[in-house]
């Protein structure tokens, strides 16, 4: 496989030069890793317009009015966050991958060695797409209530194709409930992950690099947060403030980064001792430069793996809360559907089991992909 690869292209500045002294190192640096100004400008523009749209939605539009009037879509707080997270994903995951074709192709070859992970990635792509656009195609479960069609079995249990996965006690098609559940899982998993991983990475690298009192204070806090079981804290806060999806997502994001922080700290401590960091410091690099240019990129494989493996934890956590009846009463989480179907277990087992199967497969797929990513991008 490696034989038909083109020779590695180390950067145009280097191949064009004839001697060592003619290399323009600024150009090499720029070509290798800094983001082109156009991308920075585009990102700034996107985030600026998002903030503007958000302000417009919350300050100028009345509370009840839909944000996008034509389709009657009233964007909720959680959906705003999801859009922001997707924009972050485009600029900080998809674009760099597309720019570094050679590296991407290499990672992909490594990743492909794990066939279960490739299948899982396909399934996650399906869940992502359906969760994102599905709610625009299929009607909301509450608008599809039809008592005449209650307890329709799924197709494979003798039902009709009109309700391929069957219906629940109120005649809502199970497929609609599952699609809206995908959206909820998507929001919980991605938004909480971005919160938790960002905080954890910043805290971990800061603790490792500054050491001394900064390290002591940050890690003591991490100890404390690790001691307080996050599920119990969530129950207590939901008891005090009432359940909403935004609260659940925010709490998972703000109170479950301690594992990442610890991991990044120990990783950064190891990286910090390595020759290239010492060389950068000796050449006069400042602290922030060293952290941003040398430490964070070198702990990123740990961070990406931790990020992928944290998503299923958040999805499962939210589903468990909803199952216990502490979820947001306005959204159709899978946990809520599973819980509602419990009383019909003997006569309509599909209501609980089919959404549960989707939840199980989603979590399983994330775990497969996370482990394959670790093997593909973590050289150790």
């Amino acid at each position, binding site marked *: 496989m490696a034989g038909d690869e083109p020779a590695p292209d180390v950067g145009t500045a280097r191949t064009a030069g004839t001697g060592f002294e003619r290399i323009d190192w600024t150009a090499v640096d720029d070509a290798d890793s800094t983001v082109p100004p156009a991308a920075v400008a585009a990102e700034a523009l996107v985030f600026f317009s998002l903030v503007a749209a958000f302000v417009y939605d919350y300050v100028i539009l009345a509370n009840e009015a839909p944000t996008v009037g034509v389709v009657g879509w009233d964007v909720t707080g959680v959906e705003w966050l999801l859009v922001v997270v997707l924009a972050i994903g485009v600029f900080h995951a998809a674009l760099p991958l597309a720019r570094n074709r050679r590296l991407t192709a290499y990672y992909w070859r490594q990743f492909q060695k794990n066939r279960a992970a490739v299948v899982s990635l396909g399934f996650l792509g399906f869940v992502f797409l359906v969760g994102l656009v599905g709610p625009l195609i299929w009607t909301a479960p509450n608008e599809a209530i039809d008592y005449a069609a209650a307890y329709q079995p799924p197709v494979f249990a003798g039902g009709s194709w009109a309700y391929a996965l069957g219906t629940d006690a109120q005649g809502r098609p199970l497929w609609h409930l599952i699609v809206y559940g995908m959206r909820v899982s998507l929001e919980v998993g991605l938004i909480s992950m971005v919160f938790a991983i960002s905080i954890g990475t910043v805290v971990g690298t800061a603790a490792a690099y500054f050491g001394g009192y900064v390290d002591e204070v940050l890690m003591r806090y991490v100890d*404390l947060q690790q001691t307080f*079981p996050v*599920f119990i804290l969530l129950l207590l806060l939901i*008891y*005090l403030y009432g359940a909403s999806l935004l609260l659940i997502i925010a709490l998972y994001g703000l109170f479950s980064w301690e594992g990442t922080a610890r991991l990044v700290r120990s990783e950064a401590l190891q990286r910090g001792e390595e020759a290239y960091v010492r060389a950068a410091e000796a050449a006069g690099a400042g602290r922030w430069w060293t952290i941003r240019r040398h430490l964070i990129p070198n702990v990123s494989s740990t961070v990406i793996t931790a990020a992928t493996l944290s998503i299923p934890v958040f999805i499962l956590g939210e589903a468990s809360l909803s*199952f216990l009846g502490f979820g947001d009463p306005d959204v159709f989480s899978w946990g809520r559907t*599973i819980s509602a179907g419990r009383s019909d277990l*003997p006569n309509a087992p599909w209501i609980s089991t089919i959404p549960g199967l989707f939840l199980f497969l989603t979590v*399983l797929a994330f775990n497969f992909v996370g482990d394959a990513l670790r093997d593909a991008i973590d050289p150790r």
Partner: protein
Amino acid sequence: MKWYVVRRVAWAVVATYLAVSLTFGLLMVTPNAGADVAAAQAAASGQDYDAVRERYLERRGLDRPVEEQYIDYITNILTFDWGYSFSQGEPVLAAIGDAWVYSAQYFVPAIIISALLGYGIGLYSALNRYTPTDYLGSFVAYFGISIPNFWFAIVLILLFGVVLRLLPTFYDSSVALLSVQNVKQLLMPVVVLSTASVAGQMRYSRAQAIEYARSAFVKTARAKGASEWRVLTRHILRVALVPLSTILIADVLAVLFAGSFIIETIFQIPGLGRLALEAIQQKDTPLVLATTLIPVFIAIIGNLLQDLAYVALDPRIDYGDR
């Protein structure tokens, strides 16, 4: 080393104090749910809403200055005067005393089974990598960490309770403690609860053992003619136990706490998890607090014991570092 132990114990005390203060702070910044319930009930029977609310707060001393309440609160917690639970009709500690037996009945077997099975399978597959048993082990591990335990419980009930009619679908607290019937009704809760933690411990112990299986001291032991069993128990397990105890305390406790709420709800076991849920549903603040603080205290003590176990198990640990 003495200094290390002292520091750890001191930290446990500080953490306890901070956790208790945190709950107090949360209670202070939120409107009193119990007072609202009482006032709403009074308003329904024709009394003045605000007046009843005031009286409710006054009777419980909640109209006093914050610092006075705070000192009172801390003292009460420390002297085990945890208040009266109106939803259970008895003091909070008595309610907990009644409930913990039911939780322990499935909790303790689940911890023992998951530790034995998890470490056993993990170590075995580390020493027999890429064999069918190893693959079976990692399949079980993926299954265990991915399956939502509430869904797993429902599927088991459907299969063994509804279709096959082998096991009871819910827990009956009138059954004698030491009877076949009791074992049968605890079977599914124990299986569900241990599945998740078996998987975590298995993955972790496998990774740890693989790391040590290649180390110089293990090769030396083998070269000197130590049997596989001796290498495993005396050399690999001894060093691997240190990081393994970390996951046993931190992650497993978290899995078990969250799991106990779900399992007790599904199987209708009148244990601590259900007590906490009922307290939340009925806005019974003293009981909510107690059921929040107990897991926190257990976690703090667990972490302390684990830190002290580190010292005993691995003499290489530098006490100056964490």
